[in-house]
């Protein structure tokens, strides 16, 4: 069978101030009609550049420096912009990643569809509208006649992506480039959209290029796959062959880094990373600073905590001399409870409502219930995985515990004592230091205008954990080494590091406060799989070494399986299920949990993990 699209020896370059950046380096790719061809790779691999080159929308100043793109008899690289523009939508369409941003917010769905249809076919407005209805129905949108005159913001993410697909289908294109079409969607919706893409491909005999970083999606839906790395094709072929028996070292490493839903690994092995430090970076050291020093310092925390806790109690109770007896009782209690087999955090009947009781002109507002009636108990030194789809209240839970939002009802107990709501948690309250947080996006959670040293030293200074400047510097360098960064990183600014390295810096900042409770809110969602594997390994190492208790939030069940000892499932602000991890994954009790597990793309083509 001949190819619909045939890319031969394609190179794309981006001129920059520091010379030319080669985005694609002699890439070959062939796609047949009725086939879904996956393009997979980590960030910077050039996946999206391939799509942009085909449709002729390379971001300036990028340009095609060599090679050919054959599509239905034409070489697209030789077309003028106007000729290329005629092909767009007509014969080649595109589906974008984020349905929240890929529709014009000011125009109704119907307007956008009708305009696109009439752009490519000489039909009347009413005919175009009829065609729009058919297309929307084909993509599985409900109640089309009534809803098509609504605006994009009135639709949910999954429905919007159906609209985007309908728009891409407006003129019966022969080739669709889908750039991460399900990355912004929840698993259950992802499954539906992938099925829709599969059906369209088969029924209409369209060739589809599916760009993704998600091996699960590749496994689930593609017929053939091309693995890219730094603009080069690493391996290409039938999906089952590439995933089942990878030939290249990089492909093997990439597949090994994918977290498995079906098995808990002790550690990820054979990870290949693009992050390399120069000799200059690694040889620069501060006297006496070392990872060992940081470990020893962090392990001292237990003795420190007890005195701190007691002094806080004394402080808050001193005024009341009658209750001095209580203090001595609680002193005994806290010493005897020092063993790890105690509850560190317990949450009962917790609820968070936003905008409640705000006066408005027409009576009181209802408010949005982000969390209601949440109960769970967490043992010290364990990892609790919190799972849920978007809007389930995962992050609100984290914020309520760390004190960024105030609960509207219920109570929290931390180490046997009542945890006051954030607004009532004084600066001197020991919990401020004991609970630390690592955020999802390391690009926005670090201040780009401060050096890494300033960033990591801040908690040390704030909590008074070191006596002088020399000691602070030594600690910063040591902690950086502990999170596997060179000590010299402290002299640089966050923007000089990659996403994975920034996330290490964020972890270092959390660790240096000597917390015993760490909240990780989707700490690896913004990272590539190989970096994610390194990060998960690191978190496991730290958790074991320092007996940390971690509240680990993720939408990715496979990641949760690797990390958590216990799992709680949230849905629309309610706790659906709480179970021990292995038990949860072997036999989830709730229907919703079962659905989540079922809808997660399987990795059945991959070899069993070692």
């Amino acid at each position, binding site marked *: 069978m001949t190819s619909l699209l045939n890319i031969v020896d394609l190179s794309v370059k981006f001129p920059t101030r520091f010379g030319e950046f080669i985005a694609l380096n002699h890439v070959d790719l062939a796609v047949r009609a009725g086939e879904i061809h996956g393009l997979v790779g980590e960030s910077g691999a050039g996946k999206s550049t391939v799509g942009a080159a085909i449709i002729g929308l390379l971001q300036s100043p990028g340009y095609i420096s060599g090679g050919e793109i054959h599509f239905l008899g034409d070489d697209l690289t030789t077309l003028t912009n106007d000729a290329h523009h005629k092909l767009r939508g007509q014969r080649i369409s595109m589906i974008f990643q984020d349905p929240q*941003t890929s529709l*014009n*917010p000011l125009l109704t769905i119907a307007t956008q569809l009708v305009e696109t249809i009439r752009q490519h076919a000489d039909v009347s407005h009413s005919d175009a509208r009829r065609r729009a209805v058919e297309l929307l129905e084909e993509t599985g949108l409900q109640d089309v006649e009534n809803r098509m005159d609504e*605006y994009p*913001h009135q639709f949910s993410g999954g429905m919007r992506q159906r609209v985007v697909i309908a728009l891409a289908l407006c003129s019966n294109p022969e080739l669709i480039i889908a750039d991460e079409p399900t990355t912004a969607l929840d698993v259950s919706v992802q499954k539906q959209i992938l099925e829709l893409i599969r059906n369209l491909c088969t029924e209409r005999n369209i060739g589809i290029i599916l760009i993704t970083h998600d091996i699960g999606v590749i496994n689930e839906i593609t017929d053939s796959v091309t693995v890219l790395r730094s603009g080069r094709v690493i391996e290409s072929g039938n999906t089952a062959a590439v995933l089942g028996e990878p030939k290249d070292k990089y492909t093997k490493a990439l597949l090994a880094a994918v977290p498995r839903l079906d098995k808990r690994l002790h550690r990820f092995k054979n990870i290949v990373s693009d992050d390399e430090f120069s000799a200059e970076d690694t040889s620069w050291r501060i006297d006496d600073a070392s990872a060992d020093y940081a470990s020893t310092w962090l392990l001292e925390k237990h003795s420190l905590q007890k005195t701190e806790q007691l002094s806080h109690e004394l402080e808050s109770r001193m005024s009341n001399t009658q209750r001095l007896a209580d203090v001595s009782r609680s002193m005994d209690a806290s010493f005897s409870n020092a063993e790890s087999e105690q509850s560190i955090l317990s949450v009962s009947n917790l609820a968070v409502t936003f905008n409640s009781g705000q006066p408005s002109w027409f009576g009181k507002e209802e408010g949005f219930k982000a969390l209601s009636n949440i109960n769970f108990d967490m043992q010290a030194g364990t990892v609790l995985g919190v799972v849920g789809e978007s809007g389930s209240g995962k992050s609100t839970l984290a914020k309520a515990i760390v004190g960024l939002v105030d609960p509207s009802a219920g109570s929290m107990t931390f180490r046997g004592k009542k945890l006051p709501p954030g607004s009532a948690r004084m600066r001197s309250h020991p919990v401020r230091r004991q609970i630390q947080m690592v955020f999802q996006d390391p690009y926005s959670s670090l201040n780009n205008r401060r050096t890494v040293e300033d960033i990591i030293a801040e908690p040390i200074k704030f909590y008074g954990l070191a006596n002088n400047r020399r000691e602070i510097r030594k600690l910063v360098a040591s902690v950086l080494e502990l999170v596997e960064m060179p000590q010299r990183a402290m002299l640089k600014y966050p923007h000089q590091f990659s996403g994975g390295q920034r996330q290490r810096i964020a972890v270092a900042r959390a660790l240096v406060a000597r917390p015993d409770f760490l909240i990780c809110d989707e700490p690896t969602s913004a990272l590539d799989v190989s970096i994610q594997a390194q990060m998960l390994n690191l978190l496991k190492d730290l958790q074991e070494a320092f007996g940390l208790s971690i509240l680990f939030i993720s939408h990715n069940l496979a990641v949760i399986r690797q990390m958590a000892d216990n799992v709680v499932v949230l849905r629309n602000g309610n706790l659906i299920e709480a179970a021990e991890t292995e038990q949860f994954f072997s036999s989830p009790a709730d229907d919703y949990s079962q659905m989540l597990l079922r809808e997660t793309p399987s990795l059945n083509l991959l070899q069993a993990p070692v």
Partner: protein
Amino acid sequence: MLSFIFRRLLQSVFVMLAVSLIAFSLFRFVGDPIAQMVGQETSIEDQENLRERLGLNDPLTTQYFRFVGNLTKGEFGFSYRTRQPVSEMILNRMPATIELGLVSLIISLLVGIPAGIYTALKRGGVLANAILITTLVGISVPTFVIGIFLIYLFGVELGWLPTFGRAGTVQLGWWQTSFLTWDGWKSLLLPGITLGVYQLTLTMRLVRAEMQDVLKTDFVKFATARGINYRSLYLNHAFRNTLVPVVTIIGLQLGGIIAFSIVTESVFQWPGMGLLFLDSIRYVDIPVMSVYLVLIALMFVVINLVVDMLYFAIDPRVRLKSAHG
């Protein structure tokens, strides 16, 4: 939407009260009104009688509420300088200023918006750069210099346009308009351009910046990838999405144009409110000054209200949010 407008109206009332307080305090603190009114030979007793008759011995709060009450009834008092009713003086002058403001607004929009779109699309092009540099000169040179330059070029050297004053007016009821005659338009042109240059540059640069942002968004990329023709892509998809910030700034600027047309009016001896205000300051004509202040504030409040309502027309997301909130 109704509750939103209601809230806005209530806020406007507070703004107006605050401004009227400042206007009222002019009477109290910018010299003694009695001393302004009477001659040197008026006896102390007569002055005291006058003071009593005008209610100037009443408590401040009483006086303030009387002032606000009179304002709402449209009784603006009498000018110290001309002894005419202030309302009459302002009504005579208002059409001239408003027409001048409108002309300069239209000039700035007709030139500024297309130029903004053009410079955003042809980034780095020769003509685009030329436009940007020219308008930069326009915004850096003080208004009166531009006015004098235009007078010299078109009025003195070329002799095409009148150099000062408002000609060819026609009476429409109480409104004196210069829109209906060729002479009227000719006399409007130079001051209109002078007043509009700043606004023009601002509009152009704002449209340009907003367009550049919108052109980078996914939905414009997606529309391009669907093969939508460039005309609709740039106007219907991109430009429409720049309107909310553009309308906000243009609205604020329109207020500014009318309120601060003083310099232009004085360069061109344009018989508008700005010139009246200047004369009033020269003769410490407090009633005129304070009414002018209140009217300008009212105008800003009304323009802002209109701008807020335009948001509803432009952006469906605002409509929905207010329907739910």
